């Protein structure tokens, strides 16, 4: 059990593009365990990316199955090494927060359907379609791997009378 402290902005690691994982060695497996432990320790957390615990590598973990928005539509615990979004479509706005930016939330527009490809800890390459809240969580965590925070994605300060958004 290794619950790591969450790195908060302005720590510069959160703005870096993380390095890809070349080989799944013991260090990477330990990193994944730490990420899972840290996610489970965070109240209501549905995902943690490696830079959030101070490691600039393209690794993140996600599990929306216990969240009210994701419990009906999810792939369980996802342990993702070098994740890539192969395709995405749709769009919806959700109010997001982040453990690395405490005490602040913002409306962010994200794709609602995506095709994801990543390597699992056993080396298998997995590809599947995600949608809804799980898709949003995946995009949020993957943004961390490219040095983006939700602050860089805020879509709206107000709702204009003639601005229509589609919600699912």
């Amino acid at each position, binding site marked *: 059990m290794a619950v790591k402290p969450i790195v*908060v*902005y*302005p720590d510069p690691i959160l*703005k870096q593009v993380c390095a890809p994982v070349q080989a799944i060695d013991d260090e990477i497996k330990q990193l994944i365990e730490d990420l899972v432990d840290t996610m489970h320790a965070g109240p209501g957390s549905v995902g943690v990316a490696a830079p959030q615990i101070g490691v600039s590598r393209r690794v993140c973990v996600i599990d929306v199955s216990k969240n009210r928005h994701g419990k009906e539509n999810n792939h369980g615990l996802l342990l993702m090494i070098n994740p890539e979004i192969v395709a995405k479509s749709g769009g919806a706005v959700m109010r997001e927060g982040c453990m690395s*930016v*405490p*005490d*602040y939330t*913002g409306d962010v527009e994200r794709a609602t359907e995506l095709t994801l490809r990543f390597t699992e800890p056993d080396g298998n390459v997995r590809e599947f379609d995600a949608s809804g809240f799980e898709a949003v969580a995946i995009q949020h965590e993957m943004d961390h791997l490219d040095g983006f*925070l939700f*602050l*860089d*994605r*805020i*879509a*709206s*300060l*107000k709702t*204009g*009378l*003639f*601005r*229509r958004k*589609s919600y699912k």
Partner: protein
Amino acid sequence: MNLCRKPNLAHFAVTIIGKDRTGIVADTSEVLFKLGCNVEDSSCTMLGGEFAMILIVSHEKPFSKKKLEEEFAAKTAGTGLSAFVRTLKDDEVCYQGPEGELCLISVYGSDKPGIVYRITRELADRGVSITDLNTKLIGKPTEPVYVLVLEAALPQGLTVEDASALLEKLKKELSVEISVRLITPVSL
């Protein structure tokens, strides 16, 4: 959006601010309702521990600003609420939508004086019109982080890329992150 001014209506801007408590909106709207005023546009929000309201209200003529002020003074006496009323001129009533592309600009970084000033001066000098702006101080007391998010209309001829390039030099000067993105709404 409010309709354009009708000659039979008098328009006023009403600003209400005071320590937050339950019932400020109800008290304010009660005054307006009893006077027969129509709320044409409004924005209310929390700022620190204060609740702030700005309303554009109308009333059939003849109707005086003094009447509004008196009623608010009576209602807010002893409550700690402040009320301010201003008569609007003809050209202040109609909403003038921005002509150029709308963009959203996020600025965040370690707190220091001058972030809002430097960013907004740079935009103003290039004819960029700010339509909405929020700031928040977040982070740990030992390491405060300032977040500024603003919505702005770009003048004709200035692209999002231009706006981004315009603010690029301020990233280093202010030690902040700045991102600019297009949010012009589409009708579907």
